[in-house]
């Protein structure tokens, strides 16, 4: 079967390192000369947190629910486990991400420099779990594509693979042999470069809590929540489709793409409707979680029942 894929990112579209470095100097210079509001540097976890146009006009899920009801199997199987077990256990400093594979400039991201060097923007996204519950979450982060470009992926970089920290002392769930640890996820390169894909470092304007994947996690709002890998330590550009934890665990139930799709049920339960946390009853699930206008073209010509 012929699958039409969008053209790979042209080398000319990738911002050269020198350009963004000079951009940063400009911003740093502006701050030094007092051209940015003085109070901004003191406010919250993210001075200069920029409100973005990426937002949905739906009621936010409460901060308490966002931070106390989620899956992070490294800290237990129940949705109350991450908030009970992750804080105090997960050490988020020092923290680096190794970036390598098919790229011209492999390197490391240090989380503190990352926070200093990037404009952090707030985006309000829908979040749809494969278990048929959903939330609306104000994330703080940096577009993934912007970050990836700096490492200059080459033309063999067809996919991007992500890995979570492997540390059973900090993450007791990794002692269970039920899963193939560490947690792994992946995106096709065009998905990773899509402006909606976000590397989140905070939520509700605050530093990302340990239980939500501190210090840095992926958010891909048109896919089921488990694609949003947490506490990332490694990013690799790969020529072939990377293996992912849930796909290894149950390949019939969790495909590589895992785009939110009300028309394709999980083999054991329905995906047609969802329970929005904080609401009563169920609301219909939207194709691509309501982001079809932005992302459907990534999959044109693909049979989404086959590539679920």
């Amino acid at each position: 079967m012929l699958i039409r894929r969008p053209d790979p990112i042209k080398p000319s579209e990738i911002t050269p390192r020198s350009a963004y470095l000079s951009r940063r100097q400009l911003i740093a210079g502006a701050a030094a000369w007092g051209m940015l509001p003085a109070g901004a540097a003191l406010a919250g976890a993210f001075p200069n947190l920029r409100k973005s146009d990426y937002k949905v006009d739906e009621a936010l899920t409460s901060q308490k629910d966002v931070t106390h009801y989620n899956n992070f199997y490294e800290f237990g199987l129940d949705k109350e486990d991450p908030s009970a077990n992750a804080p105090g256990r997960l050490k988020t400093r020092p923290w680096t991400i190794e970036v390598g594979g098919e790229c011209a400039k492999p390197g490391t991201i240090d989380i503190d420099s990352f926070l200093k060097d990037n404009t952090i923007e707030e985006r309000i996204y829908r979040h749809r779990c494969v278990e048929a519950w959903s939330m609306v979450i104000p994330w703080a982060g940096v577009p993934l594509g912007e970050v990836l470009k700096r490492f200059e992926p080459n033309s063999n970089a067809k996919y991007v693979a992500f890995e979570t920290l492997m540390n059973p002392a900090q993450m007791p769930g990794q002692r269970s042999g039920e899963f193939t640890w560490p947690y792994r996820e992946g995106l096709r390169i065009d998905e990773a470069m899509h402006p909606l894909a976000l590397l989140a470092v905070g939520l509700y304007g605050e530093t990302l809590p340990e239980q939500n994947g501190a210090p840095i996690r992926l958010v891909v709002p048109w896919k089921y929540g488990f694609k949003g890998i947490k506490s990332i330590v490694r990013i690799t550009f790969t020529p072939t489709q990377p293996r992912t934890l849930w796909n290894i665990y149950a390949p019939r139930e969790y495909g590589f793409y895992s785009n939110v799709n009300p028309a394709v049920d999980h083999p054991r339960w329905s995906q047609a409707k969802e329970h929005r946390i904080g609401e009563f009853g169920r609301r219909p699930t939207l194709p691509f979680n309501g982001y079809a206008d932005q992302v459907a073209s990534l999959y044109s010509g693909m049979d989404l029942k086959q590539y679920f």
Partner: protein
Amino acid sequence: MRLLVHLLCALPLLWLGGLAALDRLGANPVEAAIRFSGDWALRILILALAVTPLRQFAKLSVLASYRRMLGLWGFAYAVLHLLGYVVLDQFFDWANIGHEIIKHKFITAGMAAFALLAPLAATSTQGMIKRMGGQAWRRLHRAVYLAVPLAALHYIWMVKAGWKQPATYMAIALLLLLSRWVYALRR
């Protein structure tokens, strides 16, 4: 003693009511209530299945009178569990419930378990035993041997991961059924 067993069986229900009243069921109270009642239905039904083997092997004949009580309490939690699904989760969306019973095997198994239990609860009175005759009544009530493993299967098929706990329930239920068979062979 009978009062004590009733109280013990009512305790989870009181606990659930307390949590609900204090809004302590977490971010997804409907799911929490459904899971909680399902857990206790299965646990108490397994206890009911344990009565006969304990009587046979441990010679605790005094236990016999608790079998019906435990069975009915287990069924009561199963009713709550089903009501939670039909009313709170699905809000009487019968079309969708029907679709789920056919399409999703964990719902099929759960509904089948409930369908098997309901006539047992309905015929649990002394009057019904007399009217049906001991033999027919006993034959009917062997349906519980199928209903409890089906309920455990419903749980195994429901979980996304973490199959150990539901599999433990299944193992205990099967052991209790096996012990009946062993006992029958030895006689």
